C-alpha cells in the first residue's frame, strides 16, 4: 500500500545556478507542509537536487521535535572522487550518508561505505 506525492523540481537540467536558488526555495516551501503532513519514519534518497528540500524539511521537523525522521542518502555510483552538490549539502543533514567508492569514504569520514550497490 503506498501513496504518491509530487514535488516541484529544485533545478532543471542545465538551469542557471542563480535561478536555481529561487526554484529550490519554492520547492522547500512546498515540501515543508507535505513532509509535516506525511511525517515519514525514513527518507531514502539517491541524489537529485529535488530530494534536498524534502530532507531539509524533515531535518527541520526533527530540530523542532515534531518528528524524528531517519534520513538515508545514497550517493550515485558515478561519484568516485567528488560528491554531487546534493551530496555536499546532505552530508551534514543526513543520518546515514552512503558512498559507493572507497576514495569518498576517505574524504568524507562520516560516510558509510558498503561497496558498490549496483
Amino acid at each position: 500500500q503506498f501513496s504518491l506525492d509530487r514535488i516541484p523540481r529544485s533545478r532543471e537540467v542545465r538551469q542557471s545556478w542563480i535561478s536555481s536558488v529561487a526554484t529550490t526555495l519554492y520547492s522547500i516551501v512546498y515540501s515543508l507542509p507535505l513532509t509535516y503532513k506525511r511525517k515519514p519514519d525514513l527518507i531514502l534518497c539517491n541524489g537529485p537536487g529535488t530530494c534536498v528540500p524534502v530532507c531539509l524539511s524533515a531535518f527541520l521537523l526533527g530540530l523542532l521535535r515534531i518528528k524524528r525522521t531517519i534520513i538515508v542518502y545514497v550517493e550515485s555510483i558515478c561519484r568516485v572522487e567528488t560528491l554531487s552538490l546534493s551530496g555536499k549539502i546532505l552530508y551534514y543533514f543526513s543520518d546515514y550518508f552512503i558512498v559507493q567508492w572507497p576514495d569518498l569514504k576517505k574524504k568524507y569520514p562520516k560516510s558509510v561505505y558498503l561497496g558498490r550497490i549496483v
Partner: protein
Amino acid sequence: FRFKDSLAEDLQSADLVISHAGAGSCLETLEKGKPLIVVINDKLMDNHQLELAKQLHRDGHVLYCDCSTLVETLQSMDLSALKPFPPGQPEKFASFLDRVLGLQ
C-alpha cells in the same frame, strides 16, 4: 536504431561494445561480461560520467579513448587484459537499512 526499450539482447550477442561513458551503458555492459571501449566526448562530457569511466579504466575493466584515438585503440587493443567486473552487492545495503530501522 535511435531508441530501443532495452539493449539487453544486443549486449548479449555482442563480442565487443563501444560506448559513451554513461553509467548505465558501462555498468550494463560490464555486468554482462562484455569487453568495453569507452569513448569520451570532451565537449558533451558531464564531469561525473568521466569520474566513473576513469575509475573503471584504472581498475582495468574497460578501455578508454576519445573520438580521435578510437581507430588506433581498436587496432592495438588487448581485450584479454581486461579484468572481469564483480557484481554489486545490494544485499549489504538491504541489511544495513534493516539494522538502521531496527528490523533485524
